[in-house]
Every structure is written in structure tokens, then in C-alpha cells.
């Protein structure tokens, strides 16, 4: 494997470069004018296809757009995009106007849905003529050799960077062939390769690349994400269902997915049933571009007399749990920061539902009663806000939240 890699690596530099140099005009002969000469090659000539070159002469910035328009007969997809690129390459061996073409291609990529496709980026880079822009001496290297082309190359890499596409070996070989070692695009490539791997796993809480389509699965991963407790158990209280009733009316049954950890169960078991618990929501949760909403079951902050848990001196059979000493911790070993803690009530459970109305959420509470018997003796107050409806219309239609409770403070005792 390693040997193979190495030959692959060395091939372009030996064959491609050397060969290219032989094929092209000898650099010595060109001397100091080489830049001027090669630049003149790129000036659009009137001899070309009049139709196609009109854009250049008009000075239009988007002369190649129609190339893409023409390329897609059916769908705008990778194949169509590739066809356009290939068409450009075959049309003119000198690849005149390649900078403009590449800029247009970069712009068009999202349209064709190929903006995250590394192959396509490599194909675009391949449009550049090889060898021509490689600096041949230190003076050229010192000054900005073929600035437009180099900038265009950087532009390609920047777009890759923006979409988080990591260049591969082929990208490197292309850049080396086109711009040569120590050129600006190669530097850009090196910087990308320095930072990208470092940032690849920087997010300790990664969201899966493709979110599940099924609202129940989506709710499951979202809830697990918020709960941040591996012991927490997800329960599907109701599966989504669409059915036609006998009367011909369509009945939709929204999904209800809840999560509760053993710690939360314990907290709820210790909750004083005389005090109500609250169902609150919806609260937004963003997963990349998708927004979902969740509801919480919470209690009021504990009164101070219930907060203090006194450790019984007869608690541990084996060793003392606290020492009977009148000495406190010294300043130097006190590594706790001062944290201004805001008193918050306990959260007993969370859920996501296909509908945010009280009837649906009441079903969740009923389901919770199976595992938390105390809930049947505790008054449950619904504090539901119509909040996200406006947001909903403006942002994303993907999330499963359509129905939002009509009233602000609906109260119901279960």
C-alpha cells in the first residue's frame, strides 16, 4: 500500500511536470517576457466562436452561466455540472477565459448541489492550464506571478474552506502542477491542511451529518442531546399515525417522545405532591439548520427547609462521613470559583411532540404516571406559550411543530 502511494505521489511531479515543460515553450527562450507572452495568450481572440465569446467582449461578468444552463437538460446534478466543465475544457485547447469560467462554476455549484463534492472541486481546478503559471525563478516567486490565476486558485480553495471540504492529494498535485511549489494557492492548501484536521473533531457534541427524517428518531436524538445523561431513558408514548375514521374524517395522531433519567425520577418521587408541577414550552433547539421544540416538566425552586439534606451520623457502616472538627478549608486549597447561582427548580422530564396542544401533552403526563406514581397525586399546570408559530413560518418547515396552543395560560388539574 505504502509503495503504491509513493509511486502515485511521484508520478505527476516526474511525468507531468517534466513532460509539460518539454511540451511547452522552453523557459529560457521566453526569458523575462514570459509573463507578458502567456498573458497575451489568454486575451480572447476574435477568431473564436462568436456566440460563445460574446460575453467577453461585452465585458459581462457572467459569460459562462449559459454554458451551465445549456449543460443541464434534465436535472441540475453532478453529471450535468461535469458535462459543462468538460465542454469548456474540450472547446478550446488553450482554455481561454478559464478564470472567468472557474468563477462562474464556483458560483453555480450550490445550484447543482455539488458545493460539498470534492471531486467537483478537483475537476474545476483541473480546468487551469498546467505548467504555465509556475514561477521559474526566485524573482517571479517573489512577486505575484500571474496574480489573477493565483487569486482564482485561492478562490476555489476558499469556497472549499467555507463548505468545510478537506482537499485531498489530488488537489495538491493539481495545485503543484498549475502553480508550482511555494505559490499562494499551495500555501493556502497547506494552511487548510493544517487547520482542517485540527478542527474536524473540535465539537464535543457533534450533530450527525444527516439528521433522521423520521420525527420520532429526530426527537430521540434531540432529547438525548439535551438530557446529557447516558442513563436517561427515551420512551415513545405515542407513534405518529394518520388514519381515516369511519366518518371519513382524517385523524392525525401526533408523536409523543419523552425522556427521563433515573435521577429525575428520584427527584420527582421526592417532590412534595402538595406543590404543583409545571409543563412548560415550547423551547427551541437548533440542530444545524433544523429547529425542533421541546417541553419540560419542572417544579418550583425548593424552599430552603427542604434543600438541606442532613447526613445521618449513622449512615455509613464502615467509616465516618464527616469529621467532628472545627477547622475549615484553607484559602490555598480552595479551588472553587465564586459562582453566582440562580435558584432553579428541578426538571423532572422532557418531551417532544408532534403537536403542542394541551391534549397531546396531557397524554405525555399520563404516560409518565406509569413510572412516576406520585404524578397522579400532584397537580399539573400547563404553561404553554404560542411562541414559535411566528418563528415557524419564517424559518424552517422541516420541524415537526405545527400546532401551537391557542391560549397562553391554560390551567388544568389532572
Amino acid at each position, binding site marked *: 500500500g505504502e509503495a503504491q502511494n509513493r509511486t502515485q505521489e511521484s508520478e505527476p511531479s516526474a511525468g507531468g511536470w517534466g513532460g509539460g515543460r518539454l511540451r511547452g515553450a522552453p523557459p529560457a527562450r521566453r526569458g523575462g517576457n514570459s509573463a507578458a507572452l502567456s498573458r497575451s495568450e489568454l486575451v480572447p481572440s476574435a477568431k473564436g466562436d462568436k456566440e460563445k465569446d460574446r460575453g467577453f467582449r461585452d465585458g459581462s461578468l457572467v459569460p459562462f452561466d449559459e454554458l451551465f444552463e445549456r449543460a443541464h437538460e434534465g436535472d441540475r446534478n453532478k453529471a450535468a455540472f461535469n458535462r459543462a466543465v468538460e465542454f469548456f475544457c474540450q472547446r478550446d485547447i488553450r482554455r481561454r477565459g478559464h478564470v472567468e469560467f472557474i468563477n462562474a462554476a464556483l458560483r453555480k455549484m450550490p445550484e447543482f448541489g455539488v458545493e460539498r463534492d470534492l471531486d467537483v472541486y478537483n475537476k474545476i481546478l483541473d480546468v487551469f492550464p498546467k505548467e504555465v503559471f509556475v514561477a521559474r525563478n526566485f524573482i517571479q516567486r517573489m512577486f505575484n506571478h500571474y496574480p489573477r490565476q493565483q487569486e482564482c486558485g485561492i478562490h476555489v480553495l476558499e469556497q472549499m474552506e467555507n463548505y468545510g471540504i*478537506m482537499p*485531498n492529494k489530488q488537489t495538491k498535485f493539481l495545485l503543484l502542477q498549475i502553480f508550482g511549489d511555494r505559490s499562494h494557492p499551495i500555501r493556502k492548501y497547506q494552511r487548510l*491542511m493544517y487547520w*482542517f*484536521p485540527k478542527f*474536524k*473533531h473540535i465539537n464535543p457534541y457533534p450533530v450527525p451529518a444527516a439528521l433522521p427524517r423520521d420525527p420520532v428518531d429526530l426527537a430521540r436524538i434531540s432529547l438525548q442531546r439535551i438530557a446529557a445523561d*447516558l442513563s436517561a431513558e427515551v420512551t415513545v408514548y405515542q407513534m405518529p399515525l394518520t388514519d381515516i375514521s369511519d366518518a371519513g374524517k382524517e385523524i392525525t395522531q401526533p408523536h409523543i417522545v419523552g425522556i427521563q433519567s433515573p435521577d429525575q425520577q428520584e427527584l420527582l418521587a421526592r417532590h412534595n405532591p402538595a406543590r404543583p408541577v409545571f409543563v412548560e414550552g415550547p423551547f427551541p433547539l437548533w440542530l444545524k439548520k433544523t429547529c425542533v421544540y421541546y417541553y419540560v416538566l419542572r417544579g418550583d425552586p425548593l424552599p430552603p427547609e427542604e434543600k438541606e439534606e442532613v447526613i*445521618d451520623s*449513622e*449512615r*455509613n*457502616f*464502615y*467509616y*465516618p*462521613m*464527616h*469529621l*467532628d*472538627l*472545627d*477547622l*475549615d*478549608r*484553607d484559602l*490555598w*486549597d480552595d*479551588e472553587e470559583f465564586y459562582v453566582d447561582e440562580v435558584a432553579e427548580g428541578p426538571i423532572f422530564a422532557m418531551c417532544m411532540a408532534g403537536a403542542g396542544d394541551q391534549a397531546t401533552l396531557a397524554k405525555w403526563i399520563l404516560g409518565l404516571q406509569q413510572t412516576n406514581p406520585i404524578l397522579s397525586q400532584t397537580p399539573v399546570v400547563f404553561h404553554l406559550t404560542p411562541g414559535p408559530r411566528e418563528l415557524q413560518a419564517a424559518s424552517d418547515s422541516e420541524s415537526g411543530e405545527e400546532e401551537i396552543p391557542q391560549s397562553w395560560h391554560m390551567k388544568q388539574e389532572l
Partner: protein
Amino acid sequence: MSGLSLLLRAARAAFPAGARQLRTGGFRSAYAKELFLGKMWKEEVFPYPEISNEELEEINQFVGPVEKFFSEEVDSKKIDQDAKIPPETLKGLKNLGLFGMQIPEEYGGLGLSNTMYARLGEIISLDGSVAVTLAAHQAIGLKGILIAGTDEQKAKYLPKLASGEHIAAFCLTEPGSGSDAASIQTRATMSEDGKSFLLNGSKIWISNGGLADVFTVFARTEIVDNDGAKKDKITALIVERAFGGVTNGKPEDKLGIRGSNTCEVHFENTKVPVENVIGEVGGGFKVAMNILNSGRFSMGSASAGMIKKLIEMTAEYACTRKQFNKKLSDFGLIQEKFTLMAVKAYVMESMAYLTAGMMDRPGVPDCSVEAAMVKVFSSEGAWICVSEALQVLGGLGYMKDYPYERYLRDSRILLIFEGTNEILRMYIALTGMQYAGKILTGKIKEMKKGNVGVALEIFVNKFRDSMGRKVDLGLVGKDGVAHPSLEESSKKLEENIYYFGTTVEGLLRRFGKTIVDEQLVLKRVADVSVNLYAMTAAISRASRSISIGLRNHDHEVLLTNIFCTEAYFKNNYAMAELEKYAAENLDDSIKKVAQQVLEKRAYICSHPLERTF
């Protein structure tokens, strides 16, 4: 077999225990706790405790037949394979009186002192299953009746327990409760007439659970406080299987000590008369603690007995097997293992009999810290030694045809039961800290308040320490108690003890009562104190051996010096770490790694073959 028993009982009668009970005085033993103050209570540990010639002769009378029984009639391999001690073996043990070793003679037991009990423990430990069965019966099972029972309870239960007609079990652990008294669910409800309790609940991992007829059960009872509030407290009860409603699960399949019977025990509406409460209603917590604290010291001699046997067996192999025309015993790396085993066996033996001797002193000496130290040291030593012995034998040790793997499996439980070593380390360190803290609080407070006198005194002491002061606690030199040939080791011990005192004081100043949460610190404190006690025991015993000219006492000096030198360096390292802050002694990093691993509940590093580009 009954003839043998008669012989034993006759022997017992011929040597009344009068001498043992005649000692007077009643001082509290606190050698281990004093170490935390940097002080050495020499009188406690020097000279090494002795027993009288009569007692020695008496115990030797016991040792012979028991040894014979274990070598001839206990088939450890079969017990391990069948996971059951055959009834004939149990009968033999009963006939030898081994079910009532510490029960007073008036109740039909052998009435052995702690020292003699430790001596028999050495032999009994040759079979782990038998040792655990016997220990569960008398070290914890019936101990409650013995130390806290009323005369009526003793008269009613002890004779049958002593003869082995009834077997006892200790029922504390529950599915949700190991050391946490608050999570005990078994409940004893007082009947309306107030004459009995109704017991309901389940206990797990009960040694002898399937064999026992008498259980010491700890259950929750509702009691009314002085101020009229109702509160749940733990009560200890004697429960007979005959009371009804007692069932047990099938024996658990275990790694080691497979022959001992361990199972679940369920109580369903078992009616227990109030007379069967041990201590008072609601006083079960203290009873449980006392039972647990008193049962541990014997593990030292038991482990030592096992290692001594292992040394014999592996030495035989090492001296006969040849490789490259050289005997195994000629290789340095093999020799090193034998030295290690000898040192460990010597030290744990010394600790065990020193502690037993201290416990046999008149009064009610509280040697629970020392006993915990013995347990920690000997259980870990046993595990290392068995492992090394297995290593000497190479592949052969791994085979089921030989007993070594069984020793390895059996000895693993030592680190776990009767309080895991982690828990006992907390006990040792916290008890010592509490003791030292009580005495030092005033001084530390003065210093913190900025009392110039106290601060100056501490500074001068520190300065003198840093100038290399010679610590002298009077162990050697004029009026010294240790033998001069152990001067080096004694000096090391003195130095360690002195600096341990300053370290403890520093820790109290730094952490105060919040030290309970500093388990990594406490662990080091416990390790140092265990080493100090072990060094003391070895020096004391070796001094005595030289002085009275025991055979091979020069060997003892070697062992003592090896152990003390090694322990000295370990202690210095631990104490140097204790003086640092958490960021420097790795504690912070250790906690952080654990936190990250536990957050994900997995090993979180990427695979070494993983790549990002």
C-alpha cells in the same frame, strides 16, 4: 473424630485460661492513632506481645490435630470443583470444636484468646472455602450475640452454635445497600402487642445463607425519638430459621471460595420475639460497626499461613526444575520473588500477632484501626504473593491440575469482603485524622488567627527540620527498646513517624473537616500509616527474636531491614506528594481523566489507526 474432639476439650480443661484473664488495668489502645500526631507510644508495641508457656503448649495441642485434619481430610480440590463442603468435612470441623473457637468455655466453646484464634486461623486458611465458612459463622455471624447479646441470648444460642449444631450467618448486605445504612429496605415492624417484630425483606450475598439456622439480621425499625418524632433506625435481630418465613436462593457461582455457601436470604413475615433484639431497638448500627471492626484482624495470620504454605510448595519446584543446566532457584529474578514472599509473610504475621496481642490485653482495647491496617496490608500482600508464586511456576501454575490457580482465585476475595480495602483506607485515615484533629485544632486555630508565638514555633520547627534534624523518639540508643542491630530501620521508622505527624498537621491546616472529600489524599495518608504500623510490628518482633535468641533471628533482621527500607522510601514519596497541591501531585489530572472517561462511560481516545485527512 469425636475422640479427637474429646482430646481437645480435655486439653482445654487441663490448661485453664486463668492466666489470660488475670491481667488488670484498662487502658485504651491507641498506637495507630498516635502515629497521626507524629508520636510513638512505645509501651503499646514494645516488647512484642508474648503468651505464657502454658498457653503456648495449649495452642500447640490444638494446632497438631487441626493441621492433621486439614492435610488429610480436607480435599480442597474437590470442594472447589463441587462448590460444596462435604458433610463429613463439616462434621470433622465441628468435632474439632472449630465452630466455637472464640465462644467462652461456659457456653461450650474453646474460649480461645485472639492470639490463639489467629494461630488456628493460619491453618484453617489452607482452604479458603472452609476458612470463609468458619469466619462467616463466628467472626461475624454469631459475633453480635457474643459482644452485645444478653446472658439469656448467649445461654440460648451459643452452646448450639459452638458445637456447630447450628450455623450462623450475618445478614447486612442488600441489593441496594452495601455500606449505606440509609438504603436498607428490610423492615421489622413491631406487632400490636409489642411482643414481637414482623420481619420482611431480602438480603444478598449471605455467606452460609443456605446452611445457617441462626441469622444476625439488620433491619429498619420505626422508633419514637425523645421529642416524639418518628424515625427509622437500624435494629439487630437474632432470627432463627425455625421462626418460619425464611427462605434462601440457590448458591451463587463464584470466582473463588467456591465451596463456601453464598446466597440470597429472604424473610417473609418472619415473627421475631423482642427478646431477640441484640443491644437495644434502634441500636443496630453500633452493633454492626462493632462486629465488622472486630472481625478483621485474623486475616493477617490467615494470609500469612497461606503464603508460608505457598513458599514451601513453590520452593520445592524452583529447586528441582532445571533450565539451561541451572536450577530455577539460581536465577536472580526467581530469588527476588521468594524474598518478596518471605518479607510479606513475615510482616503480616508480625502485624497480626501484635494486634492480636494488643486485643488480648485486659480492658476493652479498641484496636479497630490496627485491625483494619492488618486487613489492608495482608489482603494486598496475599494477592501479590499468590500472583508471584504462580509466576515462579510459569505455565504450570495456570493449570487446574495444580492448586495454585485456586489459591489465586480464593485470595481475591480478601481485598473485597469485610469492608473493601478502599473503604478501610478511608476508615483508617479518617479515624486517625479525627483523633489528631481533636488535639491539634486549638493549635491550628491559634496559628490561623495569627498568633505570633504559635506561628514562630511552627516556623522554628520547620527550619530545624530543613536543617536536617535528627529525629529521636527513643526507639534506639540509651534506654532504647529496639535491638541495636535494627538501628537503621528504627531510625527510618522514627523519621517517618515524625514527618508523618507534621504532614498530618499540615493536611488538617489545609483541609480541615473538608478532608473527608479528599479521597486521594486520604488514601496516601492511610498507606503511610499502614506502612508505619507494619514497620513497627516487624521491628518489635525482630527485636524480641534477637533478644531471646529465637532460631534464625538473623534472617528476621534481614527481612525487617528490607521491608523498612522499602517502606521508608514509599512513605517519603507519599508524604512529599501530600505536601504538594493538587495541581502538582497529579491529583487534578487523575480526577480529570476519570471525569472525562466516566462522562462518556467509555475509553474516549481515538483509535491509533484513525486519521483526519
